[in-house]
């Protein structure tokens, strides 16, 4: 029977939410083609992950384990997965569009002569054997519908938050694999630094509050962090705020920063340039706080307050705090 694979993403030993989202997406395809949904772990030691994966409908769990896979290395991971693909020939492979997956899946596609699209916002089957995905191009400015043609496997990464995880408990069969990994002499990891995050990741957050040039200083960004924390939101910024040195580049939202699509995006002291909008225009609800009634952002948001952010934000933060 044909299989749909879902790669398991972990972070500090825990399965990340995006894995459950993608398992839910895979079940949508299964309804049409009846394939078996399998979760695929790659690493040094899976532990008993099958329980959690089974909750979201993984009928099979492949554990690809090898001590050489302890630390992420794109060539080694690509080798491991490609070997297992060649022996089990899944038709469709899905994975979260995480930085790690983006770093090695293109190699897998080359090794297995697969079709690949990254960062799908929706997936479907247009016939029993043709995968069809939707993805943004030109940041948020257009959406393409893309079909795969006479190619196997068909691989796609799926944007975090694009699917809501829905439980559907089954009890998975476990398959263990331990492929040989050729030594990787040409790449050596010298150091990995994980900075404990105070707030959700921008690309995965369902609420984001961003500050722009109007926030005026690095110190004032405390206002943005405080209001973000009051509703558990991620904190972002416009390029002007980054270029002015208020906050680091990791926080930049836009065509040359992070492209995000949360349920709620609040833009504070941001005018709403084409490039900023290209990175957040697909958000479900957009709110703007700006003192200029003619700011372009007021022409493309759902709600707004025309006022001085230094007066509005403290008051709004207090109101948000009352909600919890």
């Amino acid at each position, binding site marked *: 029977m044909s299989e749909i694979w879902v790669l398991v993403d972990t972070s500090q030993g825990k399965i990340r939410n995006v894995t459950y989202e993608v398992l839910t997406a895979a079940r949508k395809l299964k309804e049409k083609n009846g394939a078996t949904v399998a979760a695929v772990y790659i690493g040094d030691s899976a532990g008993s992950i099958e329980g959690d994966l089974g909750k979201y409908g993984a009928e099979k769990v492949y554990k690809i384990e090898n001590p050489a896979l302890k630390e992420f290395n794109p060539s080694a991971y690509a080798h491991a997965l490609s070997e297992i693909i060649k022996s089990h020939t899944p038709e469709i492979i899905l994975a979260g569009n995480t930085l790690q997956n983006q770093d090695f899946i293109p*190699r897998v596609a080359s090794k297995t002569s697969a079709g690949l699209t990254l960062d799908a916002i929706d997936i479907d089957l247009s016939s029993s054997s043709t995968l069809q995905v939707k*993805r943004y191009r030109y940041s948020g400015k*257009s959406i393409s*519908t893309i079909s*795969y043609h006479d190619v196997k496997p068909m691989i796609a990464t799926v944007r975090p938050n694009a699917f809501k995880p829905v439980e559907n408990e089954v009890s998975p069969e476990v398959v263990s694999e331990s492929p040989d990994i050729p030594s990787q002499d040409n790449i050596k990891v010298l150091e990995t630094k994980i900075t404990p995050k105070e707030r959700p990741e921008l690309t995965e957050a369902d609420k984001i509050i961003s500050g722009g040039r109007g926030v005026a200083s690095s110190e004032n960004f405390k206002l943005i962090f405080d209001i973000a924390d009051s509703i558990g939101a991620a904190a972002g910024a416009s390029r002007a705020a980054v270029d002015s040195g208020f906050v680091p580049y990791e926080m930049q939202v836009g065509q040359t920063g992070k492209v995000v699509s949360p349920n709620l995006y609040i833009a504070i002291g941001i005018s709403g340039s084409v490039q900023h909008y290209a990175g957040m225009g697909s958000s479900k609800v957009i*709110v703007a706080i700006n003192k200029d009634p003619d700011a372009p952002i007021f022409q493309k948001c759902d709600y707004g307050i025309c006022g001085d952010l230094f007066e*509005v934000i403290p008051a709004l933060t207090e109101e948000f705090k009352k909600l919890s």
Partner: protein
Amino acid sequence: MGGFSLKILVIVRQTPDTEAKIQANADNNGIETSSIKWILNPFDEFAVEEAVKIKESSDAEVVMLTVGPERSVEVLRTALAMGGDSSIHIKDENFGDMDSYALAKVIASKIKSIGDVDLILTGKKWIDEESGQVAIQVAEELGIPQATLATKVDVNEASKSVKVQSEIEGGQRIVELTFPAMISCERGLNEPRYASLPGIMKAKKKPLEEVLIDSIDIDELGLTKEGLGSEGSRIKVDSIEIPVIKRSLKILKGGKSDMVQADEVQKASDDLVKLLREEAKII
């Protein structure tokens, strides 16, 4: 010629300007390009800058390479004006029909034929396709290691290796790659210079090699003629739509002027929270 101790190749691409208004073409399977202004992909600027910086502090030769139609020669001129030594234009008038799998094979095959390339630099993604896969697939085709999203690059000429600091999920990582190696560049790596007037003048005299896409031995690459065009692509764009999200445009303003005044801020905040809760049902 010859005698350089380091050869760096920079892969660059021409993309629409970030201000460009994107509209669907008549067939609805691509964008309307007639009124678009084209620029050097902003992320590729970091790659060009880094290559030129390395050249300034070592004995390196910097070669620029692009694939695209006639007009894309402009990005080679820009990159040469920033300080590259020579350039290669793989000409493809039907550019855009090729999928990234085929594109990576074409680029890798050209790099193989140049030989002795130590370091390949490119941007982390194209701002148009947003795909982020070509660089990695070129590395795979060449059998060389890669570091993506580089924010710091430290070349060691003597040991023929490079240390790269990259963004990873939730943090940073430093890897050491042995040449030949591929690096994709992230913002923050450097501040790209502007092409100076003398730079632009000099660029006009720098070598530009043109290669017709048809002259590349695609059988060798495991591709068919169709594989280079839309017919044989593994993936194909069926349609393109311009998302129009209707926004409610409910802006709370002041009683006396557009701006809410200090004594109106409390009410405006209350009202906004109510709208988000009861109408948008989002908090």
